[in-house]
């Protein structure tokens, strides 16, 4: 696998670009604080259902989304908060969604696993592992069909690579790519585990990026903890995919610091030491340290950011808390199009 060394450096970090990277750091800190808040609110019983946080993987969401432009579309699994926030969704409305409130991005009808914010390019948030990959491939086809130069980004986990719809999506993307009709970036969020099953135990071939060669799709690994590396690869790959209309696959090697979901307390599948070890490569610290070295970012600067992030997350919680539940008649809305075919009642019948 080609290492993304060069791009990592090409994401030049000097005084000129410091503001941009500082902004990215701020965003990543905010995502972390937001996720921590969701875990707390979950334990308080304010958030229901399943909750899967992105803690430890922030550079993967931020790094790829940073390379996108307006009109691009993002599909992801249930671990979708960071993508929504990176795309610019209102954190208040994201939190309200987790609280099941009518002000939520999906009107409180989707919850943590089904964040949607089409205005900001987020096409969801899906709960069936691997199910959204085919949707994303179709969306990419649609973009080209419509004559746009937008691209689609599809995030999925290492575990998702073993289900049939992964295979069908990849082969169709590969074929459509031959015609320049599938501008999609597949992003494997390889955090080492599918729930409690390690990559070696779920994937016959553990070099995940290499698996996509079976579909004539190029793939490469990148250090998913290093936002410079991720962003560097993303900038190049997104540009290339936008130009060629051919799919590309990025395997971001990362790690989740939290459990699989909020219910994954015991974590019998990994040791505390293993988690500790990976915490040394916290993506936020990596960026923060680099900004300190190169641009003189101070601890006070970071503290200020962090305070801002904590407050903003708290505000989101407050907003969510104070929002109303969906109106009862929302139960029957959005099942089918109100503007489409529907049953015709007696008096409307000709």
């Amino acid at each position, binding site marked *: 696998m080609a290492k993304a060394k060069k791009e990592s450096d090409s994401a030049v970090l000097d005084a000129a670009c410091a503001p941009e990277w500082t902004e990215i750091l701020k965003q990543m800190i905010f995502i972390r604080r937001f996720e921590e808040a969701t875990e707390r609110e979950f334990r308080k019983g304010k958030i229901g259902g399943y909750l899967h946080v992105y803690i430890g993987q922030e550079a993967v969401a931020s790094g790829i989304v940073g390379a996108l432009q307006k009109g691009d*579309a993002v*599909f992801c699994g249930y671990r979708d908060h960071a993508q929504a926030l990176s795309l610019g969704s209102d954190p208040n409305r994201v939190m309200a969604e987790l609280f099941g409130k009518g002000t*939520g*991005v*999906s*009107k*409180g*009808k*989707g*919850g943590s696993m*089904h964040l*949607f*914010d*089409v205005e900001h390019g987020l*096409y*969801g*948030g*899906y709960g*069936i592992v691997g*199910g*959204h*990959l*085919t*949707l*994303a*491939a*179709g*969306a*990419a*086809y*649609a*973009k080209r*069909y*419509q004559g746009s130069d937008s691209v689609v980004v599809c995030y999925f986990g290492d575990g998702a690579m073993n289900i*049939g*719809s992964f295979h*069908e*999506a990849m*082969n*169709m993307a590969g*074929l459509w790519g031959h*015609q320049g*009709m599938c501008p999609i970036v597949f992003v494997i969020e390889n955090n080492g585990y599918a729930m409690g099953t390690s990559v070696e135990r779920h994937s016959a071939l553990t070099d995940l990026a290499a698996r996509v060669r079976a579909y004539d799709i190029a793939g490469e690994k990148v250090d998913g903890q290093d936002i410079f590396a991720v962003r560097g690869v993303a900038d190049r790959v997104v540009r290339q995919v936008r130009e060629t209309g051919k799919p590309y696959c990025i395997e971001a090697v990362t790690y989740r610091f939290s459990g699989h979901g909020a219910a994954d307390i015991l974590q019998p599948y990994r040791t505390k030491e293993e988690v500790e070890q990976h915490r040394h490569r916290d993506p936020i610290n990596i960026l923060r340290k680099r900004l300190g070295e190169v641009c003189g970012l101070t601890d006070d600067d970071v503290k200020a950011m962090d305070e801002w992030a904590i407050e903003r997350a708290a505000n989101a919680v407050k907003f969510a808390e104070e929002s109303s539940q969906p109106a009862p008649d929302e139960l029957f*809305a*959005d*099942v*089918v*199009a109100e*503007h*489409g*075919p*529907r*049953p*015709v009642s*007696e008096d409307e*019948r000709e």
Partner: protein
Amino acid sequence: MEWCAPPARLWGMGGAPEARTTPSRENEMSEKSYRDAIRDAMMEEMDRDANVLIMGEDIGVYEGTFRITAGMLKKYGPKRVLDTPIAEAGMVGTAVGMAMLGLRPIVEMMTMNFAIVAADQILNHAAKVRYFSGGQVDVPMVVRGPQGAGVQLSAQHSQSFESFYAHFPGIHVVAPATPADAKGLLKTAIRGNDPVIFLESAALYGMKGEVPDDPNFTVPFGQSRVAREGKDVTIVSFSRMLQLSLAVAAKLASDEGIECEVIDLRTLRPLDMDPVYASVTKTHRAVVVQEQWKPFGVAAEIAANITETVFDELDAPVARVTGEDVPMPYARNLELLATPHEPEIERAVRKVLYKT
């Protein structure tokens, strides 16, 4: 009776589609086969709206196993007529994504039996994404294809899926019984903004009937149709069994003066029961006819609704005529035993009339 003759012995041997009549004036009718009605609906909508495209296995170069798409690749090109790999989940899933982005894909299943492979993409994705997105996306797409018992296609290739799909909110389920309905309902499906499961009867592909020429002719969903008026017994059906029911109704009327009212449900979801209730209120007796297995089939829902709503009007329990509760056997003699035919419908009519 053409439509109850065995279908073209091999489904794949349907012959070439007829030349299309040139678009003609309103109110005029042409005689069309069910197959060509479907084909016309698709082509008219593709002509009308560039967002409509079709994808499926062997629909392009091969021109379709039932030749419904013959000539379409040539006319519309490979970007609008997509030959796919054998990947039903992929076909449906990509169509959902296309639809969310504004296209109007039609997915042709070689037969609906293969759509089981795509059940998750239909039932957990197409049917639900509008809802769990809080209404942020439309999902205008059609999954269509032939189904039902053919001639000796065995257990994996002979199934009907009305109740399988119609249980799930978020999709529309259509099962036309005539060429006109096939065309009009398919056009509604393509123009709509929801996923539609469009279940064609392979055995009806060759059936001919009058179809309006008006390119804006559509048939709305959720409007059951009185296919034959009568006063003695209500027969409720859809798709091919509707045609068998009409045959029985004709025979009983001419032979014995028993007047059956025959109702064609057309769409199972939305399900329009009002004409059924009106009819039962008149006849006080009902028979429901479906091809597939009895347990948890369409007829149960219809019977339950009738009983629930017009119980006091019923002079006899609603009778169900269904296929036998077994996987479809290959041997022709067993296959004939497994599927419902006119005599069973006739028997059910007599039963609700207590004329046994």
